[in-house]
Every structure is written in structure tokens, then in C-alpha cells.
């Protein structure tokens, strides 16, 4: 059963086809990595899936429903969660208030539990903007997880995380796997290889390849276009 499906999804900026007729499916419960060079259209693609970026052409289906015409908030209400590539937290509010807004309730135990999943429970009363960059990323992840989504979209979540934090992140995602379907944009190949059931490679707005981590690793096109390891 497919949780997410796009048909001919396209985004045009002026003359640029940032995302070009992408047909994509994501099965329930899977962890799927979306990789590709900078400017490949990854953020634009998930932006259109979540409703943040207007669609030029094509359709988005979520859990059997055509959500193309729905505004972002309505898609989120149907069970998507979105974490931004460029950290988008409430910088002037404390961590408790950040997570409470993500949860939609201010129940103390629930909020602290959500913060605890990324190891920030002891900082609940700190102002989010005062945190180190890596901790702000973790807060953003905690806000996505707190929504208890059916589809969690993570746009380069490990950017700016320290080595140990990346390990904790991997553990958190493995914990969610099964209940939550995860669409992960990620540059760190060891994270991609450790977590994903399947990988899609995007290049200049189109799908270049799709397969298991092993298949992608062995794919000559991908080697040339992206991995550059030869």
C-alpha cells in the first residue's frame, strides 16, 4: 500500500524546471532516502509534497487521497510532518513552547518526553535561539517527531550535527521505523546507507535511479553523477 504518490510532479522557476515530471511512490512503513547533488530539486520536491511550494504541474496523492488542491496546513493535518532544511524553529520562544506548538497541547509530561527523544529535556526552559546550531537542528527534529506523523519528511536533518548526535539521530529514526514512514533527504552517505530501505537519486529535477542501498552503490550512472567515487 502506497502512503505517498506523485504523478508528473513539476516545478518551474522562470525557465528552470527545478523538478521535472517526477513519478514517485513511497510505501507505508519504509525509510526512503532522497539523494542528489546540490540544486537537484530535492527540497523543491518535498516542498511540493508538503504543500509549502506551489505545484506547477502534476499531482500529489497521500494515503489514497488526491491532496494536490489542499493547502499545506490541511496536508499536515492529514498526517504529514515537515522539517526544514534551513532551521525553522521559534527562535524567541523556549523549547517547551516550541514543542507544545508542534504537539498542539501543553501537557508537561508529553512535551518533556518529546524533548527527551533528542536529549534536550533538561533544556526545556531555554530560549530556542540561544541553543547551539546542532541543538536547534535536534529541536526541529523533535518537533517533527512530536507530531506523531504518518509521513515524516526530513530535509538534511544531520547537517551541523556532531558525530555522536548523528548516531543518536540514527537510533531515533530506527525507533520510529515501522510506525512512521520516513522520507529523508540526506547528504551524509553513511547515514543514508545505515537507515534507508530504498534510495532515489534525483539529478537536475529528474529521477536518475532508484533501488536498494547496494544497488545504488553499484550503479554506474549514480557514481558518475553524484557519488563521484568511481
Amino acid at each position: 500500500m502506497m502512503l505517498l504518490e506523485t504523478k508528473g510532479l513539476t516545478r518551474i522557476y522562470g525557465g528552470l524546471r527545478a523538478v521535472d515530471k517526477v513519478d514517485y511512490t513511497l510505501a507505508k512503513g519504509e525509510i526512503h532516502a532522497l539523494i542528489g547533488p546540490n540544486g537537484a530539486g530535492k527540497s523543491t520536491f518535498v516542498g511540493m509534497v508538503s504543500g509549502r511550494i506551489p505545484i506547477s504541474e502534476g499531482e500529489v496523492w497521500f494515503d489514497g487521497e488526491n491532496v494536490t488542491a489542499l493547502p499545506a496546513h490541511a496536508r499536515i493535518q492529514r498526517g504529514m510532518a515537515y522539517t526544514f532544511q534551513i532551521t525553522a524553529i521559534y527562535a524567541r520562544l523556549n523549547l517547551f513552547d516550541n514543542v507544545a506548538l508542534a504537539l498542539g497541547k501543553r501537557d508537561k509530561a508529553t512535551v518533556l518526553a518529546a524533548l527527551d527523544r533528542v536529549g534536550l529535556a533538561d533544556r526545556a526552559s531555554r530560549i530556542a535561539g540561544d541553543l547551539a546550531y546542532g541543538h536547534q537542528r535536534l529541536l526541529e527534529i523533535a518537533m517533527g517527531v512530536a507530531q506523531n506523523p504518518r509521513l515524516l519528511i526530513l530535509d538534511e536533518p544531520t547537517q551541523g550535527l556532531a558525530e555522536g548526535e548523528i548516531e543518536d539521530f540514527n537510533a531515533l529514526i530506527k525507533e520510529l521505523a515501522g510506525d512512521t514512514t520516513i522520507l529523508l533527504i540526506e547528504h551524509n552517505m553513511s547515514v543514508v546507507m545505515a537507515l534507508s530501505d530504498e534510495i532515489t537519486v534525483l539529478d537536475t529535477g529528474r529521477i536518475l535511479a532508484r533501488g536498494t542501498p547496494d544497488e545504488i552503490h553499484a550503479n554506474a550512472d549514480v557514481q558518475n553523477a553524484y557519488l563521484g567515487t568511481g
Partner: protein
Amino acid sequence: MNLDARSVALHLGLIAVLIVLGFVLPTYHQGNLARILVLATYAVGYNVLFGYTGLLSLGHAMFFAAGMYGCGMAMHLGGLTVIPAFVIGLICAAALSAVVALLALRTIGVAFMIVTLMFAQSVYLTALYLGEWTGGDEGFVIAQATRQIAGYALTEPLTRYFAALTLFAVALLITARMMQMSFGRVLIGVRENEERTRMLGYDVFRHKLGAVIISGTIAGAAGAGYAVLFGYVGATFASVQYSIFPLLWVLLGGMGTTIGPLIGVAFMFYLIDYASGVTNAYMLIAGAALVLLTLFARAGIVGEIRNRWVPWLP
């Protein structure tokens, strides 16, 4: 005490102090404070939109005036008693704010300020143009005898004071409660990061719409209260000056704080009162004080207190 309990204690404590002041203040200050409380109600309404939602309106005088004219004309021309006339004032302000919100919220940023300014100017000009009913520039006086509720004359100073306090207390408690509920929290989210709030699944437009209507209706309640308690309705209250006042009061008192609006109004009222006793150029002194405050207390009086000493202040 948890946060909510402290907040309740603060607001009820403030109201208790105001009740005591009603009995102990000399007549002159009691009259001043009654006026301050009505204007603070206006500022409380303005603060919902500006302080908590982050939307800067330059046209709130139209909502104040809608309540004032709606109520005043219902009494003056329609012969209604205070309570039904007050309700009509509320309905006028709520209807006007709904219409303005639906049109102005299609714009963002600077455009929102300009659209609200233009709407307010139209309301002002309409009040002047319909001089036959509104009294135009001169306005009209509401007959003393009609300004009473169940035999209690609102012209009597102590009664008037407690009527003004009731108006203010209701507005204060409604907004304080609102800011503890999900709706109010989301307004703060919209103010702090609109995109993030939308991407958490909140309907930002509907929340802003609600904020404009609540803000405009409270402003209208203040306008209706002013008409009833002070007996005068005039176009000055619809002028741009009365759109700027609440902005100054809220900036002074502390935007996004529940008690800041009252502090801001009281501070400015007594500043001008004091300065005008010292010199004819009293607006200069008031202006200088405002400049000093914006230089050294950017978050406003209550905002600075919150930032420095009392972080839990609602």
C-alpha cells in the same frame, strides 16, 4: 504555583487593586482612572492583534468608532437603553472587523498597514459626511438622563468608575484566558514564525481572521463604553490620531503582555497631565519621554520587567 496559577493571581490581584483604588482615590484621579480604564480596554484589543499576532494596524480607530457610533446613535437617535445600545455597538465593530479582515488579510506586511489606514480614513470621512445623523465634526452629546443602567446613573463618579473597571476587567480576563488556550498560543506562533506555524498544520488565515475580529470587537466595546460613560460621540475618535494612540500605548506598556496596555495608557495619560501643568510645550516633554523609553526600554515597561526580572509574566 504553576504558570497558569501565577497568571490568574496576577490578573485578579490587579483587578482587586483597581477596586480598592476606586474607593480611596480623590475624585480627580478617580475620574482620570475611569477614562484610563476605558482607553486601556481599547489598548487591550489593539494588543491582541499587534502584540500577540504581530499584525500592525494603523486603522483601529475605525473599530473604536464603530462601537462608539453604533452604541451612541442607537441611544441618541434610536432611543435605546444602555445595554441594548452597547450590544449594537459590539455588533457594528464585529461586523466591520470581519469585513476589513477578509479584505486586508489578503495583503501582508506594509500593505496591511496601508489597507487598514485607508479603511479607517473612509470610516472617518463617512462619519463626517453623514453629519445629519452623526453630528459631523462636532459630534453629539448623549442625554444625561438616558445614561443609566437599572437606575444606577453612569454619570455618578463611583458608578462610572466601576462600570469602566468592569469593561476593562472583562477584556483583560478574556485576553489573558485566550493567551493560555491553544488559539492564543498559535497567534504567538504566527507572530514568531508564520511559515513554521503553517507547516505545523495550523490554518494561519483563520487564526489571523479570528484575531482581527476579537481585537476589533474589544476596541469597539471600548468605544461604546466611552460613549455611554462620558456621554460624547465625535469624529475625532475616528481620526488617524486615535489609530496611532493604541500603538503608542502598547509600545510603551509592552507589546504582547497582558497588563502592558493598562500601564502604557496610565503612563502616557499622567505624563501628559503632568507635563501640561509644567509647560505649554507639554507634547515636547511627552515626546522626549517616549524617545527615551524606546531607546532604553525597547520592550516597553512591562516587557522590560519581563525580560529582566519576571520571565513568566503573561
